[in-house]
């Protein structure tokens, strides 16, 4: 069933469009830094480097630029859609009377979608780093924090690559919440657009709420709150507390809707 699902999704145009975007974006980031010279770029407030002239820095910024919007969109597209598309094509009912159990249908669709989304988004820091190496080579990086007299964190090439890997893994795990909500809405409504929109909408709404100081109390439960906690990996004296809480938050935001999605799908009347 997993092989079958893979065969269906790999030939879809949207799979390749998304993959292409995930390849092009880090190119643009690398090009931007190449053209911008030594001026300090954007990124999270925790990302400050003495110089951008290293492959890993480009990888780090490519990840930073895409983690807030592009990566959630990719996950929402891949995971919100499969059940809904199959329902729209009318082939879902035939799959279920083949018969394939509902849990198996959902699990294999979810599994393949997540794998494809992970592969697509992992391209962003990888290509970013490769492009960066092409432009600047690979050197140790020097990060500093905000404030005068902030100490400098020097990371060897190996250390910086390892931290980038961890940052990427953390960002992908954070997407658990998008996966959960998009899957739940996709299963419940059999509407691909609604599923994708709700996955992305969850992020946009909670980003807005997260920006409102008056709602400080609910900030820790918002799925975006810890999204950029990985930047502490590149901050002198940065703490891992944010990432730990982020992992717990993403696990809850992921598991609860996914369990609901399986229950809904199990009991649902298939009228498509």
């Amino acid at each position: 069933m997993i092989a079958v699902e893979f065969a269906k999704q790999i030939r879809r145009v949207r799979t390749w469009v998304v993959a292409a975007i995930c390849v092009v974006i880090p190119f643009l980031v690398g090009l931007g830094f190449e053209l911008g010279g030594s001026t300090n770029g954007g990124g999270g407030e925790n990302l400050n480097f003495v110089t951008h002239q290293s492959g890993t820095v480009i990888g780090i910024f490519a990840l930073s630029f895409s983690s807030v919007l592009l990566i959630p969109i990719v996950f929402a597209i891949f995971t919100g859609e499969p059940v809904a598309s199959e329902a729209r094509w009318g082939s879902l009912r035939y799959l279920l009377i083949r018969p394939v159990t509902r849990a198996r249908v959902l699990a294999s669709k979810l599994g393949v979608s997540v794998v494809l989304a992970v592969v697509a988004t992992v391209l962003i820091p990888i290509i970013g780093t490769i492009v960066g190496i092409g432009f600047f080579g690979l050197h140790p990086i020097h990060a500093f924090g905000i404030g005068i007299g902030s100490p400098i964190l020097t990371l060897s090439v190996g250390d910086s690559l390892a931290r980038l890997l961890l940052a990427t893994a953390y960002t992908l795990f954070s997407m658990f919440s998008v996966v959960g909500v998009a899957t739940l809405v996709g299963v419940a409504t059999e509407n691909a657009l609604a599923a994708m929109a709700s996955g992305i909408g969850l992020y946009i709404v909670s980003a807005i709420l997260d920006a409102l100081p008056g709602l400080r109390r609910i900030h820790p439960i918002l799925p975006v709150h810890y999204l950029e906690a990985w930047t502490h990996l590149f901050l002198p004296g940065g703490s891992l507390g944010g990432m730990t809480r982020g992992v717990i938050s993403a696990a809850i935001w992921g598991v609860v809707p996914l369990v609901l999605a399986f229950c809904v799908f199990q009991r649902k009347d298939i009228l498509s």
Partner: protein
Amino acid sequence: MDAPVVVEVTDLTKRFSTHVIAVDGLSFTVRRGQVVGLLGPNGAGKTTTLRALLGLVRPTSGTMAIFGETIRPGIAVLSRVGALVEGPGFVPHLSGRRNLELYWRAGGSALSEAHLEQSLEISGLGPAADRKVKTYSHGMRQRLGFAQALLGKPELLILDEPVNGLDPRQIVEVRESLLRIAASGTTILLSSHLLSEVEQTCSHVVVMHRGRLMQAGTVAEVTASVASAYLEVDDPDAAVTILAGLPGVNTVDPSPPGIVVQLSGAERSDLVAALVKGGVRVDTVTARRSLEDAFLELVGEHSV
């Protein structure tokens, strides 16, 4: 000796909301080798019944069994069933052949066990089987859906409006392949709102209206239960007198230029024999009631 029961529907009720009852206390039986037509106008609950039988829709109450196994979603016995429900459904960006392959493999069986070439042959798609499904016409999709239903050489075929959207030539082809499949011993349960279709294809009929069972039996039984005859004779007045006195005749009504006779046991040939004996020459005798008339009468009785 009755053939073994293949499908058993008992008191099936499906309520979609408090106001919408799609199926209401429906019971019927399909035995091996029968070709049963589930007949009713659109909205009678035919599709919901078939969906419930396939475990797609959860019944509000009642039970259903196929080959003696109580139906629940995804039950393994469905692998012995081929189905076409509410039109075919395929992945549009893959070829017809690839769709059938993936459909088959999704069930966890080896492709070599599928009757792929044979089914494609029946579908008559030819080289088009290797084209993407999104380039297919409605009729081609329908025929591919038919091929998909036949892939596993099913013992039971469940077909929802199998000739919907086909042109007359394709309808004849589907009808012929259905008769061939039935002749090979496959049990068929099909739904249709086309009475002529059921009359030509089915051995048995289950008449549904507004979710309820109206009547079930062989096509002949259902037709006969409201049988009547239409006659044109040279002397209508004399004919009315003669026919009214015959046993097995319910009512005799002049319907110029002929006479309509409601039968309750008498055969049309009995009428002709009596008229000829009484010196009345018979010009035309037709079975006034086809299944269509029977159906309209059954449904009419229960319409508001």
